[in-house]
């Protein structure tokens, strides 16, 4: 256990020195190998990198990233936002709910939280600032709504988890649908409660005739079509998740064509943006696997599981301990790296304690979402921070996110004590 602690401390120091996440992981692996093992690791990184970068399940990552990038540029996100806003403006909290539900729908086609937060944030911030909404709530709802990008399928994190835990990515996707929608509802409830009891919005919205509302709803259709092509082909036994992503890409290109947004230039922009994400993730995945390799060689996973079984924790105590562990670690670490380096250790322990690995995948993804919105290192916070007007205060983002972090913890409790929320849909499909 001391060794595990030293690894975490070493990693945090390297990260705080400002090293790139990938170099911190690899350098820590080399350091540990030189000091504690036979120093052969350097010669193995070529093999490790090739194995991981050449994995057909992981091919789904660039494909889902590309899918999101093409959709963003195909003009569907703006339509989505305006269509949903006419339905939300009468709720307590008004258009803030649009942030949540537009993120929810966009998440159904994007595998990434950051892309979801950035896409919806770009549209929402100018619109809501102009209408005089509470800044803190705007930022909080956008940053937390964006995290749905990795819970509602497709999800890059679930692809990584499925690869690590040797679980069906398709089943993980299906298991995450109900929790994803419930979590969106929790966020909406948070906005309602704040709007009623703490900060009633000063904005008044005009009523929109139902006919117009229904007409606007048609604009959500295209994105739902892409979602049903992707999830439908998985559920219908037509395609694997990787293949479904490819079907999604082709349909997104057709959609962009129908919207008259398709051009070589637009595609090239999508490529470049997709590569910025994909290459960055792949470098982290390769580095995290190198660290993972040396951690295994040193026998840390066995030590950790021995220590935990000797501690004689009850299953629920174990799970809450993991919540604490991941929330604290998630303040400082990036989610993919956190998953790759810990799943191999944690999943066998959790299975031994009687939990379902499918349930744990969804649960872990929710904990990873929390890491995206907890300072100091929370990618979604930085996305929103970069989108906000320069005269606003950065603390608005940090304060705005706090009630949503609370909602997340409440949701984690619900998932722990009602695991059926996760397991019901995949089982009822058997």
């Amino acid at each position, binding site marked *: 256990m001391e060794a595990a602690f030293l690894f975490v401390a070493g990693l945090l120091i390297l990260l705080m020195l400002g090293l790139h996440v990938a170099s911190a992981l690899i350098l820590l692996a080399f350091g540990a190998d030189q000091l504690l093992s*036979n120093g*052969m*690791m350097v*010669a*193995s990184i070529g*093999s*490790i990198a*090739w*194995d991981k970068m050449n994995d*057909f*399940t992981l091919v789904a990552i660039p494909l889902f990233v590309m899918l999101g990038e093409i959709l963003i540029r195909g003009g569907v996100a703006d339509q989505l936002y305006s269509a949903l806003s006419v339905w939300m403006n009468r709720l307590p909290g008004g258009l803030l709910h649009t942030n949540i539900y537009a993120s929810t729908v966009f998440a159904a086609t994007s595998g990434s939280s950051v892309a979801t937060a950035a896409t919806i944030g770009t549209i929402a911030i100018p619109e809501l600032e102009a209408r005089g909404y509470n800044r803190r709530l705007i930022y909080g709802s956008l940053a937390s709504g964006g995290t749905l990008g990795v819970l509602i399928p497709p999800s890059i994190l679930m692809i990584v988890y*499925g*690869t*690590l*835990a*040797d*679980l*069906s*990515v*398709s*089943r993980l996707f299906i298991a995450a649908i109900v929790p994803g929608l419930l979590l969106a509802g929790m966020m909406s409830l948070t906005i309602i409660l704040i709007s009623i009891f703490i900060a009633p919005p000063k904005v008044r919205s005009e009523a929109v005739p139902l006919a117009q509302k229904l007409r606007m709803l048609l604009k959500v259709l295209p994105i739902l079509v892409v979602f049903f092509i992707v999830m439908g082909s*998985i*559920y*219908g*036994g*037509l*395609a*694997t*998740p990787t293949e479904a992503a490819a079907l999604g890409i082709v349909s997104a290109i057709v959609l962009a064509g129908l919207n008259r947004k398709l051009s070589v230039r637009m595609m090239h922009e999508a490529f470049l943006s997709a590569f910025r994400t994909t290459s960055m993730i792949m470098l982290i995945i390769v580095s995290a*696997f190198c660290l*993972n*390799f040396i951690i*295994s*060689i040193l*026998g840390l*996973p*066995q030590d950790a599981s021995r220590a935990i079984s000797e501690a004689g924790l009850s299953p629920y105590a174990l799970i809450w301990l993991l919540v604490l562990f991941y929330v604290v670690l998630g303040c400082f670490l990036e989610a993919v790296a956190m998953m790759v380096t810990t799943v*191999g250790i944690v999943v066998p322990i959790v299975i031994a304690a009687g939990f379902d690995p499918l349930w744990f995948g969804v649960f872990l993804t929710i904990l990873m979402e929390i890491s995206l919105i907890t300072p100091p290192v929370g990618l979604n916070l930085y996305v929103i921070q970069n989108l906000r007007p320069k005269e606003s205060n950065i603390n608005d983002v940090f304060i705005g996110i706090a009630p949503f972090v609370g909602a997340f913890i409440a949701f984690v409790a619900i998932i722990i004590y009602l695991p059926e929320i996760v397991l019901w849909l995949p089982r009822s499909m*058997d």
Partner: protein
Amino acid sequence: QAETTIKVLGFWGNQPQIDDVDRPMWESIEEETDGRIEIQYLTLNEAGLNGSQALRFLRRGQFDIMTINPSYVSGDEPSLVAVDLPGLAYDYETLREISDVYRPTMAERLERFDGVLLSHWPFNPQIVWCNEPVDSITDLEGRKVRVSGAPAADTLDELGATAVNLTGGEVYQALERGLVNCGSTGSTYGYRTKWHEVANHLYNFPLGSYSQVVQVANKTFWDSLSEEDQEMIRTKMAAAEDELWAMAPRVHQQGVACATGEGTCELGGEPGDMTFTEVSEADKEVLAEIVNTVTIPNWKESCTPIFPECGERFDETIGQVINGSDGS
């Protein structure tokens, strides 16, 4: 304090061959030498590896002892997989004869990866699980079958079936939703991952072969050991090897009993009620034709560029065994 540390890479964990025989055998060395030799045993799952790079790891000396599946590494060294081509053997007696007669060739070929061959043993036959009836091998025509590796894919191609490549975790869902009609895996793995819930027919043909492995020492490491230690390890491994050969058919039977619900299921869980079909003599003829016209020629073609005598060597060794057992 340990004088020597031996880093052992096993195979996939959570199977009796590894958990009950291989791992305890290695770890017993620690006690028997009063800690003079320390053992660090890792399974593939524990190391986060998939086994395809095993020969490269062997050559670099990352591990001292490695468990290597010839099929996984047939891209790097095609000659080894000759012992594990689908359709060569239907029983473990033949399989062991094949192993014995081909062992010198395997040892010779492993030398170019600085490997010293120590033992060779099989797992369960990787048989066919289908969600539609299979009474004969020809029923696979038009079906989508999940397999990995070129020889199995070639065999399916000859049978008019489509080979689909899927990761292990995805197969349950794929069988359930009809993305594939069949998949090939060992009876115990299939039972533990609940394939019997989504497949109803078990056809006893080792399409994915027997998942045989060789255990190999890195030469530099091996030469650094004293002769007594080498002898001690060889003796222990030989005993374990006999046990593992005897164990494989038993473990296979256990898995079949659980998946079909016939006989007592000792693996726990809710037994399935799959229909079990043996390979008929007529099926064996169909398969022998494929083996002779496609599987073996394709294999010879793949190994000739790097090992020109491989064809001849095969005919002199394994070829003799399989023709002998045909009674011709």
